[in-house]
């Protein structure tokens, strides 16, 4: 990492252009990955990532430049490149005075772990998946870890340091009857060192992946229609992530591109809905100690009893929206300027009985495991895929169904949530947006939506 004096000179160079704020972000870290197929290691790779980015703000303008060369000369050049489009009187750079060093070492750093131990985890999950059924034709497994140091400093005198480490396993199973394939996957992940594997049960993850694949192999096509939908807890919270919270990010709201613009204090969801984004949960995959602008992470209540309480706001968003910063600025790495993003986002537990919500739903879909999705915040139109679904008739699970997708508009679906269960848990994902791909958790208890459009290949049951 660079010295305070070098950083100071780079910030001064950036401010000389005429901005009112300058920030330097630098990262240096390494990662390991291993890919296994059918219990045989196919690939192993090591990466060292190293670079810095300089951002200059002037009012609502943002200029950004980055470099992998972090010599002082290159940083000054990068500052000038960012400043090329900013004009005006040079602003002042405060000496560093706010020191925020939140670095913590992991209990078990990845650098001390032999590949053989990582491979053993993949093998354990693979064997467990294969043992689920002879119909499991392929199991792919992946291991990933990353450990990086970051420096964030700015012209207002902030000098912040953090060390960030995460790890993830993935198991993807294919079930085949010789003529067709169905898949299932599971990806446990934590924001921890190698000690994460005291929590992660690789065998359980492998079995979960395989069970979905086998269940879907024997499932008929999902009927299409507009019906009640029960979405299970954990990764089911992707509905909150896509249908609502992307549209609460300053990235969309600050420029008027969200269906939830100007709705603070108004009811945007059913009164049983409370939604939270909390980056402070220790060791979680989506957690951050400080955000990528150096602001401490915090618990943000976004919706309370159906009322919109807060947006997710970064520094630029705060300027445009006249809204406090929420510790939500994130970026994939130095190639991206930070913007407002989610951390661990979930529906808070409610009071409803998990069994009752299926018993009283009549005919509809029970989405036991969700896949990914996307949203257009401007219109609120979202979509996501169902990895493992069941058709419900007369309040009873009738048959597994494959190929289901759920679509709708965020504002509508939030108002139609009529049940929220008592037990909340989270799933782990990667979220892609303007500032790249960042690790996020999604979570919820089991919930029910009174009506949603279910898409599929139009099976009949």
């Amino acid at each position, binding site marked *: 990492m660079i010295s305070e004096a070098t950083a100071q000179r780079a910030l001064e160079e950036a401010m000389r252009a005429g901005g009112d704020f300058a920030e330097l972000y630098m990262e240096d870290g390494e990662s390991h990955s291993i890919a296994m*197929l059918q219990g045989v290691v196919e690939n192993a*790779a090591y990466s060292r990532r190293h670079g810095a980015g300089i951002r200059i703000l002037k009012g609502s303008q943002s200029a950004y430049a980055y470099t992998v060369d972090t010599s002082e000369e290159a940083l000054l050049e990068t500052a000038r490149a960012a400043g090329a489009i900013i004009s005006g009187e040079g602003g002042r750079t405060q000496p560093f005075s706010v020191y925020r060093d939140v670095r913590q070492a992991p209990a078990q750093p990845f650098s001390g772990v032999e590949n053989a131990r990582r491979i053993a985890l993949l093998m354990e999950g693979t064997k467990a998946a294969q043992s689920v059924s002879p119909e499991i034709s392929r199991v792919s497994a992946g291991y990933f870890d990353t450990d990086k140091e970051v420096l964030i400093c700015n012209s207002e005198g902030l000098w912040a340091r953090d060390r960030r480490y995460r790890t993830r396993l993935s198991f993807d199973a294919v079930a085949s009857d010789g003529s067709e394939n169905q898949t299932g996957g599971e990806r446990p992940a934590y924001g921890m060192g190698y000690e994460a594997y005291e929590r992660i049960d690789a065998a359980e993850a492998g079995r979960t992946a395989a069970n979905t694949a086998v269940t879907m192999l024997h499932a008929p096509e999902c009927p*299409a229609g507009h019906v009640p939908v029960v979405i299970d807890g954990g990764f089911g919270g992707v509905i909150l992530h896509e249908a609502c919270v992307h549209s609460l990010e300053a990235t969309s709201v600050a420029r008027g591109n969200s269906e939830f613009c100007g709705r603070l204090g108004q009811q945007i969801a059913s009164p049983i809905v409370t939604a939270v984004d909390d980056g402070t949960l220790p060791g979680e995959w989506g957690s951050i100690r400080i955000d990528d602008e150096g602001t401490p992470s915090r618990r943000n209540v976004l919706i309370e009893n159906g009322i919109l309480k807060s947006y997710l706001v970064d520094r630029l968003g705060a300027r445009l929206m006249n809204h406090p910063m929420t510790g939500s600025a994130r970026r994939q790495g130095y190639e991206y300027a930070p913007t407002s993003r989610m951390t661990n986002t979930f529906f808070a537990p409610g009071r409803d009985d998990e069994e009752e919500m299926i018993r009283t739903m009549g005919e509809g879909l029970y989405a036991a495991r969700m896949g990914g999705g*996307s949203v257009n915040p401007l219109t609120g139109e979202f979509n996501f895929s169902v990895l493992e679904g069941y058709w419900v008739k007369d309040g009873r699970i009738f048959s597994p169904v494959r190929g289901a*997708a759920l679509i709708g508009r965020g504002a509508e679906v939030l108002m139609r949530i009529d049940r929220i269960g008592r037990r909340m848990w989270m799933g782990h994902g990667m979220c892609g947006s303007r500032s790249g791909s960042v690790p996020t958790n999604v979570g919820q208890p089991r919930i029910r939506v009174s009506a949603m459009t279910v898409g599929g290949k139009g099976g009949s049951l």
Partner: protein
Amino acid sequence: MKRDMKAYAKELLALAKAKGCAGAEVCITENDEFSVGVLKGSVEEYSVSGSFALGLRVQVEGRNGYAYTEAMEDGERLVREAMDNARSVASTDEHPMAGPAEYPEVPAKPNALEGMSAGDRIELCRALERAALSKSPLVKRVALCRVAAGRGRFCIYNTLGLEAEREDGVSCCYVEPVAERGQEVKDGFAFRADGEAGDIEGCAKEAVEEALNQLGAGPVSPGKYRVLLRNDAAASLLAAFSGMFSADAVQKGLSPLMGKEGQAVASHLITIVDDPMHPVSPTPFDDEGTPSVSKAVVDKGVLSTLLHNLKTAKKAGVKSTSNGGRGSAGSPVGVRPSNFYIRPGEEEFEALKERLGSGLLITDFAGMHAGVNGVSGQFSLSCKGRLIENGQDVRAVNEITIGGSFTGLLAQVEAVGKDIRFSMPGGSCFGSPSLLIKEAAISGK
């Protein structure tokens, strides 16, 4: 830290040899990128960068191991990590490296932004926003308006004496206007790339039409519909399923095309070509240094070849089809398409619309990363477009899904347009004409 990359690569190769590697290869990427976003006439986002990255592949006891760095200061560490990784590999599949070869001459790709100053590019971006705002009184703002350009250099050096270097550039402009009518808000999107990246009028007009075409949209009732898949939507679906044509996926049992070589996998009207020398993005060699080869992957409906790199070709006993791909300089070598497209047919788009009779014109899919399963070959996707009755455009459609299998859809193709269009430039380019589909399953309300 600035240094001669080629010299550093040679040092690493020598070091790997000295440490006992049977072979080694260095892949270097250098990129310069520029992007500017304008809103309400002023620069909202501006980004410039210069980057380089180095990937090392070593061969130890017949196995490949990889290491990657952006900080070129610790060669010993890099070689050690790569060797450790090679020793962790258990797969015995041989992955040879390419030796020196003759490369075809490829024409330079046109680039409308080449040589343009940053100031001129910013002006172009402002003009694009103004053009979009001028196209309709219903468009009062744009959500996004960008001009971007990049130049890249890609080099591979290995211990077999390969020294392959190529350069390429991309440029584009894109805009997302917002149309508002009463309470209704809709956005549209269009881009222009490379030789056409300066066509702001065309880009603005198309984007505004896309937004206006969504006003008044609503779902249709679930059922089977005849479908006209517009060229850009068809190209994005082809892109999403292109991975199933990879020999690597097939050999790993992760593609529905396993065992289908030589068999019909689509209507006889469908020919899918992978041509690295196509003018949309011509390249002399792939990411392993194999000279470019043009081939039909699906020939009149029959799967004629899969896409191979040196490893999958060796395993299958065939030649590499020049589809070696690396996600980054340090990624294990995989397979990727080059310029991958459905060959255009004879029909005008309007004629296809007439032949559709009554059905849906689909213009856009959403959620491709989630709604497409490359292993099963199935998809269930949110989409939008227009409802057509008796050849007449009736109204906008949204909040519907289309489901099926990719090869099932290709088997149902009744006619192929002449209007081929390529997607936004990226690592691979995907193109398709509009496709008339006999029947597809649609969900709505």
